[in-house]
């Protein structure tokens, strides 16, 4: 519905909507978007971009709106802001040209990249020493009989470094000029995010998924994805500590901390994105905002988890080498593409929340 509408037109439409909202203000209790809105009579592009990212698309204000279609004012604030959001991520991304690559074709681009990288790794392993790729390797250090430990460190380290640089530069574009750091705003933001307060609909009973009824389903699925991701990240960190500091080499036993963290997080990374996509698909037609990048990101997260589980379960078979290459390919592409995927919603929304708490 909103595809291919330029950001300038969407900004104009959101100004029209905000002028009506500002004269009504019935939604002021719902969320920070309205608390911020009432402080302005005119809205700069930057302010609109921030409001768009402050919106969590719970759609409570759409269902509560006396001016929603078929009223001639045809107000649909969440859809208006949802259309702006991905365009802001493109506009603020560094380097700028990269972001558009992953917009609507994101799923195919990430899949092709992951496949290519996996193939590249498989071929490299095979070329290095064909006999090791399809052998069974058992015990500590088994992975590194297929690929050198130092190679993994270099590959993972450079991918992560790239994405950190790109994300920091993109974030800098988004932070308003002259904004000062505030510890209390950061604390309030962390508190919001940890419970996903803004997916609570302003009263804690949740978002409107399909209709006027509230449900916390989206909140729980997002918790699964978010904490699942955090646990997988923690698994990677603990594994690194084991290897670099404790001198124990992976694969680790099933009852070790890295594996337990990875299993728990991996389940979250399957349940969460799958549930969120399911909710997206059956969303109310007027507030449906499923983007190519939502699917792409969900598939990326789920593939990361599935390939990780496959590697763990089959690590004592001849398939281990292949699965290791595939898992590495998926994970590395996840990091390399991260500054341009739906992952960035977490960055921009966090920054928008910090800015909101800093000034309210």
């Amino acid at each position, binding site marked *: 519905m909103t595809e291919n509408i330029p950001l300038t037109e969407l900004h104009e439409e959101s100004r029209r909507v905000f002028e009506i909202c500002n004269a009504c203000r019935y939604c002021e209790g719902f969320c920070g978007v309205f608390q911020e809105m009432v402080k302005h009579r005119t809205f700069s592009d930057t302010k609109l971009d921030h409001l768009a990212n402050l919106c969590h698309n719970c759609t409570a204000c759409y269902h509560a709106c*006396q001016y929603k279609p078929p009223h001639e004012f045809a107000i649909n604030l969440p859809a208006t802001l949802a259309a702006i959001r991905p365009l802001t991520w493109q506009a603020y991304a560094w380097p700028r040209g990269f972001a558009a690559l992953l917009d609507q074709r994101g799923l195919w681009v990430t899949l092709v990249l992951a496949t290519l990288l996996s193939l590249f790794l498989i071929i490299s392993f095979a070329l290095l020493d064909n006999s090791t790729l399809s052998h069974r390797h058992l015990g500590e250090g088994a992975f590194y009989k297929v690929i050198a430990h130092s190679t993994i460190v270099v590959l993972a380290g450079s991918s992560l470094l790239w994405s950190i640089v790109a994300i920091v530069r993109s974030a800098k574009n988004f932070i308003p000029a002259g904004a000062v750091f505030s510890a209390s705003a950061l604390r309030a933001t962390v508190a919001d995010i940890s419970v996903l307060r803004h997916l609570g609909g302003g*009263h804690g009973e949740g978002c409107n998924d399909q209709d006027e009824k509230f449900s916390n389903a989206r909140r729980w699925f997002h918790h699964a994805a978010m904490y699942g991701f955090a646990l997988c990240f923690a698994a990677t960190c603990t594994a690194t500590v084991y290897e670099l500091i404790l001198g124990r080499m992976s694969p680790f036993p099933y009852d070790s901390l890295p594996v337990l963290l990875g299993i728990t997080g991996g389940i979250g990374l399957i349940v969460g994105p799958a549930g969120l996509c399911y909710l997206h698909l059956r969303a109310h037609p007027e507030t449906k905002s499923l983007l190519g990048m939502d699917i792409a990101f969900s598939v990326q997260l789920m593939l990361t988890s599935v390939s990780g589980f496959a590697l763990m379960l089959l690590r004592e078979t001849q398939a281990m080498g292949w699965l290791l290459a595939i898992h590495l390919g998926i994970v590395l592409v996840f990091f390399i593409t991260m500054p341009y995927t739906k992952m960035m919603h977490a960055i921009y929304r966090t920054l928008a929340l910090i800015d909101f708490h800093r000034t309210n």
Partner: protein
Amino acid sequence: MKVDTKPRVISKTTNILVIGGGHAGLCAAITARELGASVTLIEAGDRAMRGGNSRHTRNLRVMHNTPTASLVGAYTENEYWQDLLRVTGGQTNEMLARLTIQGSEPLLDWLMSHGVHFQPSLKGTLNLERTNAFFLGGGCALINALYIYAEKIGVCIHYGEEVVDVYTTNARFERCRTATGRCFSADALIVACGGFQANETWMAENWGPAAKNFLIRGTPYNRGIVLKALLDQGFARVGEPTQCHAVAIDARAPKYDGGIVSRLDSIPFGIVVNREAERFYDEGEDFWPKRYAIWGRLIAQQPDQIAYSIVDAKVIDKFMPSVFPAIQAETLTRLAGLLDLDAKHLQTTVSVYNQSIQRGRYDSAILDDARTEGVIPGKSHWALPIDTPPFYAYPVRPGITFTYLGLEVDKQARVMMEDGNASLNVFAAGEIMAGNVLGQGYCAGTGMTIGGVFGRMAGTHAANQVSP
């Protein structure tokens, strides 16, 4: 409306039929259903536009002796009663008014336990945080919550069914027919379908051709068909038949359902002229919240029912903006051109007004002494010369909120007959009977309180009556 009179099948029989799916009708339907009655609710609007005028509301006025989650301080029964007495000028039934007041506090709890969310008290606006509880998200959110609850407990809801005929015999409801040709019969009827402000023909009976220029702030479905049918069949009336709550709103608002955003707050900050570019009333008589409801009537009496609120650059940022941008020009002559007014006449009106202003201290927060002398009409407060370009104008028309004519009810929400007896099975709630309590004037949030209290009362007594 001409409807077919062919024999028809009775499509729905139920214990209790509720006509009107706004706040009052929903409170009645839910209450009756919870007491075990089978309940059918018919709503004239389609699902998207359901809820009548309730969709445009935002709070209700609640008595409370101690602070609650959504209200600060205390608002005693007596203070509430004094407020009602004052705004109605005594045109109120004290027994029913006190029932409303006493019922308001349990109503708040009842609404919360039926899914309605309220804003925390500290968020209150309009200085009403002591007296009025604000719905989180406004009236549509309240209506949504009550529809969800009603559906859940098995109230049978029909959208898009506008009643065109009601049949009663000997003070007893028999059946009614809708525009789609369906018939509904029931053991008891609760009417909660509002006044008649959206019925242009009926409005023209009182206002003449002026009625066609009125804007209706709320639903287009309040056409008073059921009200008229019952009044014609011997049910007793209450309230002034010719009166309506008419406020000044932006003339560019839609004909119906413009709601809150068409509100205009500029009038006390400048002058108001009619089509002849003449002032016609004291724009600074009192604070705007105390005067906005007389301006609808004032403009209704002007030619073509149109007026223009004119302010200058000094004050343009001093009031809440209207949703429609001000018409602006660098000179009064050009402004007159944009408004299609006689430029010379507007110049004269403004200069006479400017010259009549006495030296006084301007303060918009108090009834100040910046006023005019020797001009008719005068401006009693906040008179500043209109001399700083650009000049701004807002076109203004009467916006009708509701009508006062209604059905007389007793303390069980039972509709009275003209002979002084109560109807056997017809009850009323909401705007259609609000005139019992609010004979004239208005007091923010009382309409929703009357709707909720009498809705619950009607639901209770109707259910008790039909229970075996």
